[in-house]
């Protein structure tokens, strides 16, 4: 009797999809080392020129901007999401708990375009924030918030908040409260308990949330494109611009390969940097 019934039937469709995905990624690799023929969709012969061109200040700056943007977004998201996750896990009121849960989860399912558009209304020169500040007399004339890196970060923080809250809440809910009670009975104050017990024990969630926020921001396109309005260039907006305005697909392909490598490297680095902290949390 066959001990593995249906194996072939169950694996082959997945194998087909995997083959398609691998072929698509190989196509990107292959295009990244081909010459660009201006005005044509055909590509030329083998060349390293695309990768060499990335050292030019314009593109090097876009990479640096993107990493900086991702880092700022991840830091601010962490700072804002932690109190929310803490309140979600520790509150005694079940109404507050479901309120926080629904408020932080619904945006996850709204898509990048809807969320980015709503920030355009908030940040615009005739937008909500400027009008409010003018009416309150805190400003004399509107402050430019659209088309700035700060505006992009604010919207990206909002986009990455839900996933960070969920990951932090998962980590916080797995902490054994007895450690905190033991510290309290030994006379530690609440600030000290938080800094020496709760925060280190939630480190795995912080690392997971931080790297996810980083990766999401790295692949975000609608937000930097619409709120940045061409004045904040990131890897994703450059790739789109190269592909669909100048049809330079070879260069777009090489940019997306370096972008992928860079984001994988940063995530690996974050995991490595955090492992001593996690070990510390494991032994306390």
């Amino acid at each position, binding site marked *: 009797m066959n001990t593995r019934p249906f194996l072939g039937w169950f*694996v082959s469709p997945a194998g087909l999809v995997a083959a398609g995905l691998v072929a698509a990624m190989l196509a*990107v690799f292959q295009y990244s080392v081909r010459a660009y023929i201006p005005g044509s969709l055909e590509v030329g012969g083998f060349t390293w020129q695309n990768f060499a061109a990335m050292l030019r200040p314009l593109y090097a700056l876009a990479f640096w901007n993107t990493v900086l943007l991702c880092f700022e977004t991840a830091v601010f998201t962490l700072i804002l999401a932690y109190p929310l996750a803490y309140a979600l896990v520790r509150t005694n009121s079940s109404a507050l708990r479901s309120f926080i849960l629904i408020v932080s*989860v619904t945006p996850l399912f709204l898509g990048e*375009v809807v969320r980015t558009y709503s920030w355009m209304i908030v940040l615009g020169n005739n937008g909500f924030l400027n009008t409010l500040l003018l009416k309150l007399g805190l400003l004399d004339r509107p402050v430019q918030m659209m088309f700035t890196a700060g505006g992009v970060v604010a919207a990206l923080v*909002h986009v990455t908040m839900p996933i960070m809250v969920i990951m932090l809440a998962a980590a916080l809910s797995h902490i054994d409260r007895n450690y905190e009670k033991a510290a309290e009975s030994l006379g530690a104050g609440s600030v000290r308990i938080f800094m020496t017990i709760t925060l280190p024990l939630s480190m795995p969630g912080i690392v997971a949330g931080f790297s996810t926020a980083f990766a999401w921001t790295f*692949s975000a396109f609608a937000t930097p494109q619409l709120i940045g309005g061409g004045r904040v260039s990131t890897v994703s907006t450059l790739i789109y611009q190269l592909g669909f305005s100048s049809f330079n697909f070879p260069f777009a392909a090489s940019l997306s390969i370096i972008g992928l490598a860079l984001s994988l490297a940063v995530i690996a680095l974050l995991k490595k940097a955090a492992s001593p902290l996690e070990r510390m949390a494991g032994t306390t």
Partner: protein
Amino acid sequence: MKRTPGTMLLRWSGRILVGVILVFVLLPGVVVAISAFNDRAILAFPPQAWSLRWFWRAFSYADFAKGFWNGLTVTVWASSIAVVVGSAFAFAIHRYKFVLRDVLEGILLSPLIIPHYTIGLGVLILASQTNVGRGFPLVIFAHVVMVLPFVMRSTYISLENLDTRLELVASSLGATPLRILFTVTIPLLIPGLLSGWLFAAILSFNEFTATLFVSSQATQTLPVAMYNYVREFADPTLAALSVIYIVVTATLLTIANSFLGLGKILNVDAH
């Protein structure tokens, strides 16, 4: 906790902090809702007059209607294919060891970390190299690739919780493997398959970046149509559409929550 002035101060500042953060999270949604009912074509706060005309325009704008039906076509196909392919594969990796098992799993989970613009660009280049047109099959393929990891996970979790003794009982009573699969295993997996399908459908319907690369004028989905609208017009039509979007999504989530449990869906997402 002792109620010293210090801890009381700490507790109240914590509450205020959480309140301020919640305002930050809710602010864009509230602002969009207000501006959707604004009568004038130019945004102004507070609106001078109210009207529903932007909702009417959102419904009657041809690109949105077309984008909605295109998106629905792509979503239904992509999430149904993903559920069949992904759950069959999850079953295989849960039960069996076979050649290239870990490699295949790694490849199929990789869209979780590969930026969507890279996937979109790759599928687009592949299509142009193989002379496949930019029709629906291309968009559907890209979506299947992107939602497959989530379907695989939700089926895998259900398989972990499945009591395999029920299958053994059926087998000892003489049922063939095919019969066991259709009368025992699949019926027991239904909740996991449904939540996987729903999650895939929501993700697929909202997917934007990769779709922008692989779709054409004829196959553009709703998020792509919305993106194109923002770049051309500045009136509150999109605010009205966003309100509809938020209401529909919240309703779907509430239904999903009461039938399947939000925790279950989140479990899929949080790991």
